């Protein structure tokens, strides 16, 4: 695709959250004063870049020649026949580095260069965002430091090695639960010490304003492409359902952004053990206000999921708002539904999804079999990543 997608009008669902970065009552910029000027400078730089056709053209070109976009829209013929609904897969697993994470990091790395930064900092849980950031850093000549919980470093040795091969430094985080939430806290702490030369390349639609909005905009390429592809593929033009898995919520936000102004039903699928919308309460963590898993005293709980990429106790603030406003709904699936969903997609379509992405598939299977999805309704599912990274988990579960 060579056409340049121009920014959409500010009005309406999933629009510009304004200077305060509010999505309804959610979002905001709850960070120490030391980081306020950096967040403000980033917002200004992003607004400027996003309305600059040259920046858009440069990013579109990188997405095409480096990341392999546009990704395919694959009709899941055999699964559809089994389920009696028409399933279409948006194939982010085919993007370079194996997931949608590359869309966001190429945008942020290009923006960091434009701002004159020389380093990228990133947090990572499963390592997918860390690998993507290391990749973008190598591509654009930026030093990369990735903060990763000690527990995750043990669980994800392969991705740690991938990051190092790409030239990134991986710093173990030993505080708290030593997982994603702690690596995010540590990245914010370390950013304070080097704001002049470093950009914090945050991996999801969370964090202080402008991150939730900026990351959604960098990920909306998923939804915008899928919209065009659905228009070509479907007689109705628009799918009845648009489904995506949610940890922090970036692939879902990017997908939903392409369909927010249509009649499609938007469905976000959380892991039962990390379901901030289903089981959380409103809280403030890592710079934003949203639903958050926490105990009765306000201490943040650890999320648990078979999919490390969904192990985050919060959810992006825009999702909290989409839920409250009724524009999207959020459902959960349990760990037990995941491996069967992986196997089923593998054997009907020859596609091994990431455990994260399999949450979306698992919900579609359940909803189709229970009759919740009307016969031969059309269901677009974003397949956020490929399952190669999950072989050890799958071997242990088989």
């Amino acid at each position: 695709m060579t056409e340049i997608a121009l920014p959409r009008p500010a009005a309406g669902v999933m629009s510009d959250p304004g200077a305060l970065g509010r999505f309804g009552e959610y979002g905001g910029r709850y960070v120490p004063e030391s980081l306020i000027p950096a967040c403000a400078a980033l917002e200004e730089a992003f607004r400027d870049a996003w309305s600059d056709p040259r920046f858009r053209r440069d990013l579109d070109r990188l997405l095409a020649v480096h990341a392999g976009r546009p990704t395919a829209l694959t009709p899941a013929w055999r699964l559809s026949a089994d389920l009696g609904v028409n399933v279409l897969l948006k194939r982010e697993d085919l993007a370079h580095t194996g997931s949608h994470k590359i869309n966001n990091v190429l945008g942020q790395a290009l923006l960091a260069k434009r701002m004159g930064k020389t380093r990228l900092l990133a947090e990572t849980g499963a390592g997918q965002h860390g690998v993507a950031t290391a990749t973008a850093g190598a591509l654009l000549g930026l030093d990369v430091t990735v903060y990763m919980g000690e527990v995750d470093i043990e669980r994800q040795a392969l991705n740690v090695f991938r990051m190092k091969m790409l030239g990134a430094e991986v710093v173990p985080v030993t505080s708290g639960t030593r997982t994603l939430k702690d690596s995010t806290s540590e990245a914010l702490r370390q950013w304070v010490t080097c704001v002049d030369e470093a950009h914090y390349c945050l991996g999801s639609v969370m964090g202080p304003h402008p991150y939730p909005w900026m990351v959604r905009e960098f990920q909306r390429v998923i939804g915008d492409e899928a919209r065009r592809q659905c228009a070509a593929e479907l007689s109705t033009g628009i799918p009845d359902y648009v489904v995506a898995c949610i940890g922090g919520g970036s692939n879902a936000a990017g997908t939903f952004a392409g369909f927010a102004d249509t009649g499609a039903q938007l469905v976000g699928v959380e892991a039962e053990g990390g379901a901030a919308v289903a089981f959380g309460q409103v809280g403030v963590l890592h710079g934003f206000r949203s639903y958050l898993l926490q105990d009765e005293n306000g201490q943040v709980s650890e999320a648990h999921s078979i999919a490390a990429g969904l192990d985050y106790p919060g959810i992006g603030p825009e999702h909290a708002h989409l839920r409250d406003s009724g524009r999207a709904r959020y459902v959960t699936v349990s760990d037990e539904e995941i491996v069967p969903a992986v196997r089923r997609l593998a054997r009907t379509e020859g596609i091994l999804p990431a455990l994260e992405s399999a949450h979306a598939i698992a919900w579609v299977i359940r909803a189709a079999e229970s009759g919740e999805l009307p016969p031969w309704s059309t269901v677009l599912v974003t397949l956020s990543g490929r399952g190669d990274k999950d072989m050890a988990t799958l071997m242990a579960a088989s």
Partner: protein
Amino acid sequence: MTTLPRTGRPLLAPYITGGIRPDWTEYLHEYVRNGADAIEIGLPFSDPILDGPTIQEASDTALRRGVTVRSILDEVAAIDAGVPLIAMTYYNLVHRDAAAFCRDLAAAGIHGLIVPDLPVDESAPLAAAAASAEVDLTLLVAPTTPAARLAEIAAASRGFVYAVSTMGTTGSSFAASGGRLATEVRELTALPVLLAFGIATHADAVTAARSADGVVIGAALMRRILDGCSPAELGAVLAGFRKALDEDGSDCVP
């Protein structure tokens, strides 16, 4: 209100993580006996994004003991410290019912509050709740805060202004450049300006107090508690800071 005393000498505000040990209030008494002008009490949070390794460890230690905001406030209510007490915590522990939170602080005898992840732009709801409970919401300034924003924060802050000396977390190395920030803020407000972050040695404290109204000492004291220092031993450490500040400060701070 936390009116800090006008003693004519540099103000000394030591910090303690509430509930870090069963006998933690003993440290509080030792602080008072050894020259504290005010005491900052940390209400531990699971994800303290402005704290370095020492206060993270202190917070984790206290939380593992099972302490809560309620249990800490109950212990504080039972003592008469004799100096202003200031709570320091993160916004997630405050926001759900800010009015009740502030009333609870006041009922426990705490009339100051610092919330490091709540910048001035987001502070209006809590500022109102604090004011009606007669709790001073003290705001932070940082070395990167632009001049116009410094004035806005200085005007909105209550009790005093908390100047972060360095671009880092608690327990970072003290940056003498923090002195410039304190000097700048003092020109904008009649409130006392306390310098904090990284003040670990007598020399750091003396340097800081030459440009500020006083200092906050946190991680340097908490490191000693975590390493097993007794209340009396820590009292002696604080007395050392007091003496160093008084000897230097008599002719340096207006």
